[in-house]
């Protein structure tokens, strides 16, 4: 349960302005209104005792009415800057969004009979779109899905036709340009047709150092026998607020394999829920998070096994330094009917400073009796034994520690199957290592 708080009038004023200046069709207008009404009635959750979902995450700053929706046209960004600062390959199908607005000029979508990738305002009359948008991340699920729905404008709609395979990766690139206190609400809906295969990547990239607020919602619908390889890259900046919601719905024998990466924002949340709603579905959620300074990164990962013969993995790793804090709240729910479920959860953390803190809570909730489940979590400092071993080979302590961090992170980075994404994340990790080391004890 969330609790209403006194909130600024800013969001209400923005919503009113949006409705007036960016009218949409009746269907979407109604959806927006539902989102707003829900947000208006509950407001932001508070980090108070008893509010289990949010007790570690202080959102008071969001409530002070400083963040505003940008109605003006977005700043211009050059293709060169995108190539330099964001994951990019000309081989991908890329939809680019600048400050929440779709940029047709920067996007690169090759025509492909099996795949439709378009701005969601162009999809308003698509039947699949209408049927699924907001079905899995409901407008009234929580404050952030509500807010995102209220401010629905541009976003990505990707539809993969039945039996379609072999499309080049689809990249949904959400870029924020320098500006203080801008709020953006990116929206994604991906529907994979029966027995189709696709790779979909979401990147949230900040070009400036200013504090912004990004509240994306992404819905993935996997029909029977389909497979999606999913990547989520969060590299905004250390002042940003990022509350991301991902909802995945899996039908029988579908496979969702996801790897997320987060470079610590000021306050970040990667809130993922996967519903395995038919037999034989398989889901893998991997993640890596790096935090330092006074950053807060929260991975709220949950998988529900509703039907038998499902398999799920959650594997997250974190490197924490400075006075940062991270949360891994991993939940696997195995319902009564979900016999023969296999579920595994693991969260491993490397803590570089005494000021850093990890709250790791892998949890299994099992109501079926014939299942195979296991979970584990660790949090440890760099092993002095290992450091001595490396030093005894002539490697100095700082280099040794960096190698250990790199090695620790590589276990997740190496899982990334798309070269352009892996290289990008690898580069971000390399740049982060000295900063994390500088804040280490």
């Amino acid at each position, binding site marked *: 349960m969330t609790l209403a708080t006194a909130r600024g009038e800013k969001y209400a004023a923005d919503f009113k302005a949006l409705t007036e200046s960016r009218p949409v069709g009746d269907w979407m207008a109604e959806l927006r209104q539902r989102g707003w009404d829900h947000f208006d009635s509950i407001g932001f959750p508070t980090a108070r005792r008893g509010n289990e979902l949010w007790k570690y995450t202080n959102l008071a700053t969001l409530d002070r009415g400083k963040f505003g929706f940008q109605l003006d046209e977005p700043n211009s960004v050059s293709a060169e800057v995108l190539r330099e600062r964001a994951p990019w390959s000309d081989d991908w199908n890329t939809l680019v969004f600048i400050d929440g607005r779709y940029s047709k000029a920067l996007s690169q979508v090759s025509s492909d009979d099996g795949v439709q990738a378009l701005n969601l305002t162009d999809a308003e009359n698509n039947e699949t779109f209408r049927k699924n948008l907001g079905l899995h991340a409901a407008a009234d699920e929580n404050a952030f899905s509500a807010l995102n729905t209220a401010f629905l404008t541009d976003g990505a709609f990707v539809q993969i036709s039945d039996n379609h395979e072999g499309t080049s990766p689809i990249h949904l690139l959400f870029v924020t340009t320098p500006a203080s206190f801008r709020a953006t609400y990116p929206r994604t809906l991906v529907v994979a047709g029966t027995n189709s295969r696709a790779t979909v990547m979401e990147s949230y990239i900040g070009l400036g150092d200013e504090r912004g607020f990004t509240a994306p919602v992404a819905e993935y619908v996997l029909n029977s026998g389909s497979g999606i390889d999913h990547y989520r890259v969060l590299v905004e900046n250390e002042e940003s607020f990022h509350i991301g919601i991902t909802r995945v719905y899996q039908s029988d024998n579908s496979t969702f394999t996801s790897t997320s990466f987060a470079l610590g924002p000021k306050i970040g949340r990667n809130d993922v829920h996967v519903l395995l709603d038919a037999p034989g579905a398989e889901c893998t959620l991997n993640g890596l998070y790096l935090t330092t300074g006074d950053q807060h990164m929260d991975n709220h990962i949950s998988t529900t096994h509703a039907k038998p013969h499902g398999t799920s993995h959650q594997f997250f790793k974190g490197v924490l330094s400075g006075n940062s804090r991270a949360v891994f709240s991993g939940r696997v729910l195995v319902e009564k009917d979900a016999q023969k479920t296999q579920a595994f959860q693991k969260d491993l953390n490397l803590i570089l400073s005494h000021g850093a803190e990890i709250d790791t809570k892998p949890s299994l909730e099992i109501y079926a009796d014939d299942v195979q489940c296991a979970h584990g979590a660790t949090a440890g400092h760099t092993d*002095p034994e*290992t450091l*001595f071993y*490396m*030093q*005894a*080979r002539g490697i100095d302590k700082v280099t*040794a520690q960096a*190698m*250990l961090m790199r090695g620790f992170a590589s276990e997740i980075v190496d899982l990334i199957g798309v070269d352009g994404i892996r290289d990008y994340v690898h580069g971000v990790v390399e740049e982060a290592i000295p900063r994390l080391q500088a804040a280490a004890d």
Partner: protein
Amino acid sequence: MLQVTDLHASVLDTDNEILKGLSLSIGAGEVHAIMGPNGSGKSTFANVLLGRPDYVVNSGTVRFDDEDILGLFPDQRALRGLFLAFQYPAEIPGVRPWQFLKAALDAKRAYAGEKPLSVRDFSKLFDEKVEAVGIDPDLVKRSLNEGFSGGEKKRNEMLQLEMLEPRLAILDETDSGLDVDALKIVAEGVNNLRSPDRSFLIVTHYQRLLNYIKPDVVHILVDGRIVETGGPDVAMSVENHGYEQYIKAAAAD
């Protein structure tokens, strides 16, 4: 090359003194063995020479090439040419033997004022040595020492020894847990590296390894002190009569 004089060392933050006045001297090109019963301080000595932070040196000196090395960090000692083949090598997740050795060799070369080897040259050298030491090439694609058997870890230590070509190599019970074939590989590695300017200190409980590596000098360590120094015949005496004779003599002092 190495002069140790009246070395006293304890376990960090305790009064537990392990080395109680150890002295020895190793000349260039010599192979020395230190033997002793369990708990005599053999491994402690090997680790203190490299500066393991779990031990504190209370008094005495250790000079390597006439330089006092007790104030140096382990990596600084390694760069000067010391090497310890570990009894229990650390497992390093996510770091491949190749990366690890490249970093070590780059550091060594940088210290000597040399450029790092190119990836191609390094790979060539690495592949040669992997084959020479008899390591399964699939093994070196994994994380360093992770999931390696005891024997594989020891072979990997020998690989590092051969790659880094130290001036003084200390082998800390490298023979423990090895079968005869592995033992021969270790011995072959050491024998191939023997040279007039490279020395070895072989720490062992058993005489077995010394059948394959012929030491110039054998020391018997009992209760943190060297109680006997001699030739290979000293090792044979341990093989035939055990350590009891030395323990009794040390107790009588």
